[in-house]
């Protein structure tokens, strides 16, 4: 199945309606690529069979999230097995990712043995580098000291940092520390000050990718699914022509396009959580055993230099 979306209603060449339609297909395994200002979508199965040409972007990477090593309750008795399946899925992609982002909750209880197991498992990922940001489950007892030591990568403060790949600027943010009673995720003044400086001298045409654990947009505040001071952070980025925000924490895929910002959350590799308001609380959700792998997954991202948006494809384990 292939489909050309021809309506081009905006001056910047991005067909909003078409893009949103495309994003809605992403959950079923469609690949959307912006080529020459025209959105094209292809079935992932076609991509896998190499039926479509000219799809190799300048950069491709993968996001995995919420592996929760150490969790062993009803929602998934073997999170290591499903993590390994996710790794196999990454390794089977037609284009090997240049690097992998893990958007936090590597472990369930911040235990050293859990970090060990996670690090050991990810060694089988066929990729050059792995970048991490912590989830609240990774910083339970020591203000994130152990996390930073093992996965910190030249990080500053509570663990934030940035790096460049193929002309795109990647920013890892930490919004799970120093949380206030009754509040949501929190970036804090030091991190915001750093962020403002970090992007100050970049050209507005530089594609920006921000990754952090808790969503940087207000998904569902009642369950803590949002970040109190993300507006401030996003204000430093709004001059850029392409911003992609990748988050985890909510254990389901969700996406929102707001102007030139695309927000996207990833599945967990460990267990699903309910949709906003569909349950008493946001905790681990038990599904029938034969459905578990349909609600866990990975996210593949392709970026073509000079194009506006990244192509984001979620795929489930089964």
């Amino acid at each position: 199945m292939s489909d050309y979306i021809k309506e081009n209603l905006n001056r910047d060449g991005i067909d909003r309606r078409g893009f949103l339609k495309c994003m809605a297909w992403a959950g079923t395994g469609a690949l959307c690529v912006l080529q020459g200002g025209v959105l094209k979508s292809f079935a992932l199965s076609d991509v896998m069979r190499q039926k479509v040409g000219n799809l190799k972007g300048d950069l491709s990477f993968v996001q995995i999230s919420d592996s929760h090593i150490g969790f062993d309750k009803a929602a998934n008795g073997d999170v290591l097995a499903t993590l390994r399946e996710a790794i196999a899925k990454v390794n089977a992609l037609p284009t090997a990712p240049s690097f992998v982002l893990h958007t936090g909750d590597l472990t369930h209880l911040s235990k050293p043995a859990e970090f060990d197991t996670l690090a050991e498992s990810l060694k089988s990922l066929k990729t050059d580098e792995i970048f991490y940001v912590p989830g609240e489950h990774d910083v339970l007892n020591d203000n994130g000291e152990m996390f930073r030591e093992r996965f910190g990568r030249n990080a500053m403060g509570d663990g934030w940092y940035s790096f460049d790949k193929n002309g795109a600027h990647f920013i890892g943010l930490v919004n799970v520390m120093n949380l206030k009673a009754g509040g949501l995720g929190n970036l804090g003044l030091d991190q915001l000050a750093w962020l403002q400086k970090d992007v100050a001298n970049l050209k507005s045409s530089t594609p920006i990718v921000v990754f952090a654990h808790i969503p940087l947009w207000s998904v569902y505040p009642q369950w803590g699914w949002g970040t109190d001071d993300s507006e401030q952070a996003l204000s430093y980025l709004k001059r850029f022509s392409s911003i992609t925000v990748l988050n985890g924490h909510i254990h389901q895929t969700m996406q929102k396009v707001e102007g030139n910002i695309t927000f996207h959350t990833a599945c967990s590799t460990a267990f699903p959580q309910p949709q906003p308001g569909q349950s008493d609380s946001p905790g681990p959700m038990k599904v029938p055993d034969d459905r578990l792998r349909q609600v866990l997954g990975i996210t593949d991202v392709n970026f073509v230099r000079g194009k506006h948006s990244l192509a984001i494809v979620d795929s489930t384990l089964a």
Partner: protein
Amino acid sequence: MQNKKWILSAAVTVLFAVGVAVSVPPGFVVKAADQSAPSAVKIDNFSFGPANLTIAAGTTVTWTNNDDVPHTVVSDDKLFKSKALDTDDKFSYTFTKPGTYNYFCSVHPKMTAQIVVQ
């Protein structure tokens, strides 16, 4: 005759009343709330129950986590702070001074509750 009957029934009534007053079942003793009896808070479905607990000074409160994810018990004023509680883990704190103590889960800060110590 009527007077005697009246006096007799009055006397019986009085005796009866006195009898009732003194025949209190054993063990039925009214006293102040036992200050050393512990109080319990259950952590369930991302909430503290009861969310508002009133206790007497000197009471020990014990929190038990029944959720599949870890939670913490942290005083807003930094007076007490548990380590991360896994499923079935407990944390206890003895409140000696009267006052209102707000606390929350530092992992899921939307979870807030209160202990009132009298």
